[in-house]
């Protein structure tokens, strides 16, 4: 190891120093540490090659690709309903949310609009997937920083949301419920009342996390001022979602550039931003977003119109020629699908713009000069899902 050479170098330096007021530059050899791919802090198989100088990070470079499944190549040989099943698994925690931009892009090319009831339910499930995703994030962030109890509370309260998603769609994790032109099925009886109750429990959970985690002094000292990303850097890297809003940029696709097919103009809600751009800001914005999502769901539940849940679409879906890009405000950030169609059963090319890909590319920039524990803190606050980075 390096200890012997350090001592020799130090002896040489001491011998060369003429008086005590000479600044001794401690020449320590850096250490290269592989964080991952198997590691509790990285949500999945992400490898980070960190060059350390003691506890300080000189450079941290993520090496993704351990979970690359070749989605974009696969979409060239799969029909649109089959792709719907596949893309559920990109961001597997908020899985309904993955389907939505793709379905909206296909609907745009086909010129089909989902009936209002389907649009409402689609938005409700979209927001519920956001809640499911981010509530896990908050608990898991506490877990990574050492407050393991927060993680358990998150899993416990997330179950309420997952139960509701399962009641409606049949799948807790991979609902595969969205269809071009509407939804697969209508809601079961009693779902609306149960979901109201689930949202109330979620709001209580958010308050609990506020007290347990956000107000904790140690949590604040681990996250305030750590990993500050200024707004222009955030925009240049393409950070999206809570990461961007925590740097002070007031942009939310749901409000500013919402694609047709969602029901956001029927509800009253706020977009939260935070001026600091540090880990605490990102966590705080996400917590507020979870509350807002619960409120949106409650408002929408009271307003669901009647009617069919599926528009008139042919049984075999052939999307006309054209290109369409639809981006939505997914739980992890801005997710978009660029669909190029040549009029077949199968798209010609689908480019998947996943949020975590851009979110993690900022890591080399933000990790310079941080400590190793801060690296965990920053990674946790940027929040990624491996499936989203690697596709």
């Amino acid at each position: 190891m390096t200890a012997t050479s350090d001592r020799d170098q130090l002896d040489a330096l001491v011998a060369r120093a003429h008086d005590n007021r000479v600044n001794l530059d401690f020449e320590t050899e850096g250490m290269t540490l592989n964080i991952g791919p198997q590691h509790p802090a990285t949500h999945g198989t992400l490898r980070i090659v960190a060059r350390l100088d003691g506890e300080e990070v000189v450079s941290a470079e993520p090496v993704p690709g351990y979970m690359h499944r070749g989605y974009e190549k696969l979409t060239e040989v799969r029909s649109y309903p089959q792709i719907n099943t596949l893309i559920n698994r990109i961001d597997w925690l908020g899985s309904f949310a993955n389907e939505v931009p793709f379905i909206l892009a296909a609907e745009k090319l086909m010129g089909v609009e989902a009936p209002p009831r389907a649009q409402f339910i689609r938005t409700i499930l979209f927001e519920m997937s956001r809640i499911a995703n981010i509530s896990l994030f908050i608990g898991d962030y506490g877990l990574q920083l050492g407050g393991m109890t927060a993680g358990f509370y998150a899993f416990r309260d997330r179950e309420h949301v997952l139960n509701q998603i399962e009641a409606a769609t049949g799948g807790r994790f991979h609902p595969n419920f969205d269809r071009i032109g509407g939804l697969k099925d209508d809601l079961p009886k009693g779902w609306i009342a149960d979901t109201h109750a689930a949202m109330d429990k979620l709001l209580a959970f958010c308050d609990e996390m506020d007290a347990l985690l956000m107000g904790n002094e140690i949590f604040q000292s681990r996250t305030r001022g750590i990993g500050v990303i200024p707004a222009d850097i955030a925009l240049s890297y393409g950070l999206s979602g809570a990461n961007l809003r925590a740097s002070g940029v007031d942009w939310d696709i749901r409000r500013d550039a919402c694609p047709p097919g969602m029901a956001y103009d029927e509800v009253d809600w706020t977009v939260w931003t935070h001026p600091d751009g540090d880990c605490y800001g990102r966590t705080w914005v996400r917590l507020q977003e979870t509350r807002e999502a619960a409120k949106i769901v409650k408002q929408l539940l009271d307003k669901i119109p009647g009617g069919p849940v599926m528009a008139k679409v042919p049984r075999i879906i052939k999307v006309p020629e054209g290109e369409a890009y639809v981006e939505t405000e997914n739980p992890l950030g801005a997710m978009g699908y660029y669909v190029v169609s040549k009029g077949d059963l199968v798209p010609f090319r689908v480019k998947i713009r996943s949020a975590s890909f851009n979110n993690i590319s900022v890591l080399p920039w933000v990790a310079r000069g941080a400590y190793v524990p801060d690296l965990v803190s920053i990674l946790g606050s940027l929040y990624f899902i491996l499936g989203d980075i690697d596709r």
Partner: protein
Amino acid sequence: MSPLSSADTTTDAPAEDDVEVEVEVDERRQAILDELTSRLGDGVVDSHIRPGDDLWVRVERPRWRDTGAELKAMGFAFFDFLSAIDWMPSPYGRDMDAQEDRVVAGEAPPDPAPVEQGYAGGDTRFQVIAHVIDVERSLGVHLKVDLLDDELSVDTWSDLYLGANWHEREAMEMFGITFLGHPNPVKLYLPHDFQGFPLRKDFPLLARRVRPWPGIVDVEPMPGSDSDDGEDE
């Protein structure tokens, strides 16, 4: 929907009867297109606007970097994505993979279908496409650029838009495109000794074509170092 031909300003397609106004002009996007054209001059080769929806602009290859700089100056600060499209129809057919790979099995490949580009036209097989957004005005622009068939290269955007770094690395390894001036042209997803460019249409999807086992492979070297250090982590 909108025809593939590159209409720049008004959609004068007569079949669009279900639009409220007969001739819809998207003024905001038209204004962006006009400003970009005035900044780049004849660097803008072609464009396409889908009113109320999106804007596509195709630029000349030598002006690709200037395009990025001008867009940044115009306020498009949010970098969305950068990728490439291979317009050649797949010689293996685009049916589900349950169908046998006939070309692999020894049949002659069918006559290649003509290469037809999409919105804002195109002349070559490969096109790089990028999307940037102005968060103040909530508008986005798709940029397309043709790549020469015998020299797949274009300037890098990674110093203008920092996020382009990873997107260009992915396009490099998936399509074989060189981004001139990229600071770290190392493979992103694929192993360092992977052969072929997966997202090209003539790269078969399935491992039905069995590759010979390469034998004992060395430990993956650290990014940035040529030889493998044999890290024992």
